[in-house]
């Protein structure tokens, strides 16, 4: 990460930390927390779609599994949120890993359709496996997370800050991925799987890894959502949610962490901000997406950077050895 990025991140973080000081209504707190949750979801899908170039139309399924795992454990055993959330992450990651095994050889449209089918299956399971999920009644009165006797609510900014902490951790984790062998490898697979394989990359291993990490993150987002809203049912995780996550990834700019954060902020807040145009807001919403894709195919912040490559700080490349010409190339 170069200096400019660091400054931007710090400023945004300070603003977000200070934001509740203006006195947020419960409604605003809920919307902001929801934006944070969608940031995590977008960052999660970004690993599969942005880095590896595979489209998932059923990401809400993993979001749902996380939400149900955490809320049901909390309901039955009364465990602390951190523990139920951890279980949600592990459970969702495990199911993501299982999911990736039979779909290993698939990519592109085939994988997209399968993920969509998986999303539907999970939804039907939630509705019909009543003994576990309470079917259409949903899980009700989900306990608020509690730390050292303090309940995280929307009246004391607790949920806001809890979600923010999760976003910060997720962003840091994604930056670590991006600037490591894993990030490079996934992008290589996106650009040319055949060439990647002939460089010694085991494609199936990395596909599994990407799926596991991505779905585990979606599980964390699910846990947050369940304890934020206090009530979940199958409709909380329908295909609209999957579409929303994918829209954020494409709109924000595939492969860009900043893009995911900005994209989620814009797309999730949009319907709220544009309440004054009533039912027309979704027309405007659709129009914005269309215009974006026509005039900025890389999304808000996607595409190849114009700045020079940033070497990790611990790498000392001798002065004069690398002549910087930006990223423009030879022409």
């Amino acid at each position, binding site marked *: 990460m170069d200096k400019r990025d660091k400054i931007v991140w710090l400023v945004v973080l300070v603003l977000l930390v200070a934001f509740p000081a203006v006195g947020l209504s419960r409604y605003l707190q809920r919307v902001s927390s929801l934006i944070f949750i969608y940031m995590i979801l977008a960052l999660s899908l970004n690993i599969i779609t942005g880095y590896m170039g595979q489209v998932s139309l059923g990401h809400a399924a993993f979001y749902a599994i996380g939400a149900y795992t955490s809320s049901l454990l909390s309901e039955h055993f009364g465990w602390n949120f951190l523990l139920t959330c951890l279980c949600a992450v592990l459970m969702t990651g495990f199911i993501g890993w299982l999911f990736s095994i039979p779909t290993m050889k698939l990519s592109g449209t085939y994988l997209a359709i399968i993920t969509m089918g998986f999303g539907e299956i999970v939804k039907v399971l939630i509705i019909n496996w009543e003994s576990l999920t309470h079917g259409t009644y949903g899980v009700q009165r989900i306990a608020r997370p509690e730390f050292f006797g303090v309940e995280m609510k929307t009246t004391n900014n607790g949920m806001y800050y809890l979600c923010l902490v999760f976003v910060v951790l997720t962003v840091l984790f994604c930056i670590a*991925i991006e600037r490591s*062998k894993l990030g490079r490898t996934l992008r290589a697979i996106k*650009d040319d799987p055949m*060439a990647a394989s002939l460089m*010694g990359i085991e494609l199936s291993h990395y596909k599994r*890894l990407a799926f596991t990490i991505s779905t585990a993150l979606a599980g964390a987002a699910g846990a947050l959502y369940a304890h934020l809203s206090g009530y979940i049912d199958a409709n909380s995780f329908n295909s609209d949610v999957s579409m929303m996550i994918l829209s954020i990834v494409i709109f924000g700019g595939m492969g860009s962490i900043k893009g995911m954060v900005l994209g989620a902020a814009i797309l999730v807040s949009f319907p709220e901000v544009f309440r004054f145009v009533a039912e027309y807001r979704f027309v405007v919403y659709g129009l914005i997406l269309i215009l974006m894709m026509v005039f900025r195919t890389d999304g808000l912040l996607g595409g190849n950077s114009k700045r020079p490559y940033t070497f990790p700080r611990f790498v000392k490349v001798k002065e004069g050895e690398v002549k910087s010409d930006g990223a423009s*190339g*030879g022409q």
Partner: protein
Amino acid sequence: MALLEVSNVSKQFGGLAAVSEVNFHVDQGEIISVIGPNGAGKTTIFNLLTGVYDVTEGKIVFNGEEIQNKKVQYIVNAGIARTFQNIRLFKNMRTIENVMIGFHQNTKYNTFDSTFRTPRFRKYEREAHEKAVEILNSLGFGKYIHSYAGNLPYGEQRKLEIARAMATGAKLLLLDEPAAGMNPQESEELLQFIKELQDKGFTIILIEHDMSVVMNISDRIYVLDHGRMIADGLPEEIANNQMVVEAYLGKSEDDAAD
């Protein structure tokens, strides 16, 4: 002992014999060219050598070890790397990143290490960056380090593919038509470049149509036609070989009348 020994290798696709009972060997430090008309099976041989295809029959011994039908990753590790007839760089990655992908198998840390920035992560990342810069500088790529591979001039893309293959730690480089689409000046440069690779200790198998390159650079030449090796020898022997001329140009009417 030969570095690479291919004996009686055949490859069938259904009823079609792409390669039949091919024999050849490559010694350490040699530049070997494989030539032949389009569809003769040259690229198929590269795919067999790199494990993309399994052989139907026969044996491939590399560095004293049988490698036929082994996994692609295993063969890369053993020391064979290749370039592609149609350039297959990671276009949306930078030059230096392309080379670092070549180090993939020798960058030995996992996601835990990179998340928590362990000493192991730092060690291998430092190594990968430094070696990549070293390779790129040694090939005169210094000024392109930050560029995206897709933005490089054509000739440089060809070279970068070779650099990436070198980064895998390969002893044997398989170059699939590196001079394709190059103008005479570019192919002259490439010729020098490949000779430098030989001086650096690499062994090279070359598939090439550009005869000025082939004749100038090869220690020995193998000629493939319809999946069979029809001739082999020194460049001047091949240039005067009747069968080779026929394979490329067809028989003249006088010969056909015989």
